[in-house]
């Protein structure tokens, strides 16, 4: 329940401001140095340096044997990770966009997620599948989806997201060290966001939420890019005398229900925010956990602010309108407080 790390905490001497893409890069680089079984494979991870520059320079440093440019073969990327992992490697397999994971779905869901269980525990699959997700880039319906709920729904997969360079680095390092299959989602609209990252090595354990802003009136529970929108909404609302707490769940599975409940216990109001289509999205799981385990604490129904029931449209006004923004989050917070009166 306790907040174990203080991401974005006051910068100390040994802290730099770096991009999230750089933080992820450092995590990969450090874990490759730490464990020779770690390798990276994916489309354009080598010469190009990764679609979002995360792996830039790693090919030059580590060579073709461990930074592997693959053909456009997502099923083979997903499956090769399984074979390599089960025989002793620790693969980091990158999908250029999470939208392409559909092509690898059998390998991720029927193979990676189930092998250990089906084999009676006699196998270990330390795989990290990395993938950019999310909208806001004008890349239209096949390059902008938020499909995290698909994966969180599959027993055998852990699902991790990150909202800051600090969290990205610490969580990716833990994901690589994790002996289970991790699907690691990076929101593409925040790769170029800067934040403080310590010089010294650190990791952030999976399964721990983080309170990004303390407040007493309403808990906004969210993850990835929407954390920033929630924080913007909180700033706006502070001017109206409403004190918002922002909980970044970070890991979707295992979900840190205790931290969420502790927040709701304090505020008695919950608004869950996620960018994916509202219906059947991961926020529905969060809302359900709150009402099952925190019903007595609630002064109002748990509200959701989420994406439209549509693919992500191309045109800018439509794309903006299809996903949550600070204004809609603020409106839901006000509505939640009204509901209690």
């Amino acid at each position, binding site marked *: 329940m306790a907040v174990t790390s203080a991401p974005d905490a006051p910068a100390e001497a040994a802290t730099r401001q770096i991009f999230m893409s750089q933080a992820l890069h450092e995590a990969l680089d450090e874990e490759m140095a730490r464990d020779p079984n770690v390798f990276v494979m994916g489309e354009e991870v080598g010469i190009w340096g990764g679609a979002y520059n995360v792996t830039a320079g790693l090919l030059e440093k580590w060579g073709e044997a461990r930074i592997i440019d693959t053909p456009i073969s997502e099923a083979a990327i997903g499956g090769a990770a399984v074979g390599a992992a089960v025989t002793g490697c620790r693969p980091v397999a990158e999908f250029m966009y999470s939208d392409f994971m559909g092509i690898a779905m059998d390998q991720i869901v029927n193979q990676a997620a189930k092998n250990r269980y089906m084999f009676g525990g006699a196998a270990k699959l330390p795989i990290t599948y990395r993938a950019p997700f999310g909208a806001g880039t*004008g890349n*239209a*319906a096949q390059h902008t989806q938020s499909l995290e709920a698909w994966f969180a729904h599959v027993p055998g997969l852990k699902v991790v997201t990150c909202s800051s360079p600090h969290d990205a680095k610490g969580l990716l390092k833990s994901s690589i060290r994790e002996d289970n299959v991790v699907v690691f989602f990076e929101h593409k609209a925040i790769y170029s966001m800067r934040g403080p990252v310590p010089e010294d090595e650190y990791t952030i354990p999976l399964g721990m939420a983080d309170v990004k802003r303390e407040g007493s009136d309403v808990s906004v529970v969210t993850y990835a890019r929407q954390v920033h929108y929630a924080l913007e909404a909180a700033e706006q609302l502070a001017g109206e005398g409403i004190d918002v707490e922002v909980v970044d769940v970070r890991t979707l599975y295992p979900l840190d229900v205790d931290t969420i409940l502790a927040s709701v216990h304090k505020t008695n109001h919950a608004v869950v925010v996620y960018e994916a289509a509202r219906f059947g999205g991961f926020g529905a799981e969060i809302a359900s956990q709150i009402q099952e385990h925190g019903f007595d604490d609630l002064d109002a129904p748990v509200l959701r602010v989420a994406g439209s029931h549509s693919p992500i449209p191309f045109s800018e006004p439509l794309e903006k309108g299809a996903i949550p923004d600070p204004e809609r989050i603020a409106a839901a917070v006000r509505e939640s407080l009204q509901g209690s009166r």
Partner: protein
Amino acid sequence: MYRTMRRIRRFEEAAEVAYRAAKMRGALHFYIGEEATATGVCAALNEGDFITSTHRGHGHCIAKGARLDKMMAELYGRTTGYCGGKGGSMHIADVASGNLGANGIVGAGVPIAVGAALGSKLRNDGKVTVCFFGDAAGPTGAFHEGVNMGSVLNVPVVFVCENNQYGMATHTEYANAAPVGDRGPAYGMPSERIDGNDVFQVYERAKVAIDRARDGEGPTLIEAVTYRQKGHTIHDSKGYRDEEEIAKWIAQDPIERFKRAVLEAKALTENDMQAIDDEVEEAITQAEEFAEASPWPTLDAIEQDVYV
């Protein structure tokens, strides 16, 4: 065919200018340097035949007869675009003219083309489907499954691989264990490699394959060798290709080659081509004006057309 190639070239040049003036967003994948392939292939198709396209789809779309104004409006994200602004450059479709859509998923068009051809076979409508795909779709499962199924079901489809030498920064020889154009025997169909920058050769070879498909003799696999003169997208300024290679291919520019050939054969004069250029220029200007003047979509459009 000259008109079509010029329309493609000038449409994209105009789109690049508009993009850099922040009038559009997202990704733009330019077909510049590859115009002869779409132009030659589509010239061999009948009206009503089908094509499936790719993320680099402007050329296919124009060659299949799309209107420049509605295409430009789509790139601008306006209601008057082919997709009402919902698709953008990477998803332009014009189902009415037989263009079953550009595609953001590499390889995804292959099975779709097989399905369209299967429909033609079932209806016995005499139509042929051409499936355009890039060399980097060669490694996808969708390619293998689609081409194999097209062959075993013996449907009227022609697979046209546009080998522009690269998929992003990856050279085609790195990604493909064997060239796509050599794979016909593996799938029980004829295959050949052709000069994708020679619009006449493309037309002739495509015509043979299309006629064959129309006659019920099954699919053909064509690898058109060409070159992507620009970066992968408008944002690509990476130096993974050497200048010499690019220069060598610019010297093989399909439009310039066409000009040289027709002037030599005295089939067209400079004046003839200038007249076409002027006409294309006017169409481009009109398309830009149309796009600029078109309204933005409103929020009620977001959840429209998700279902019928």
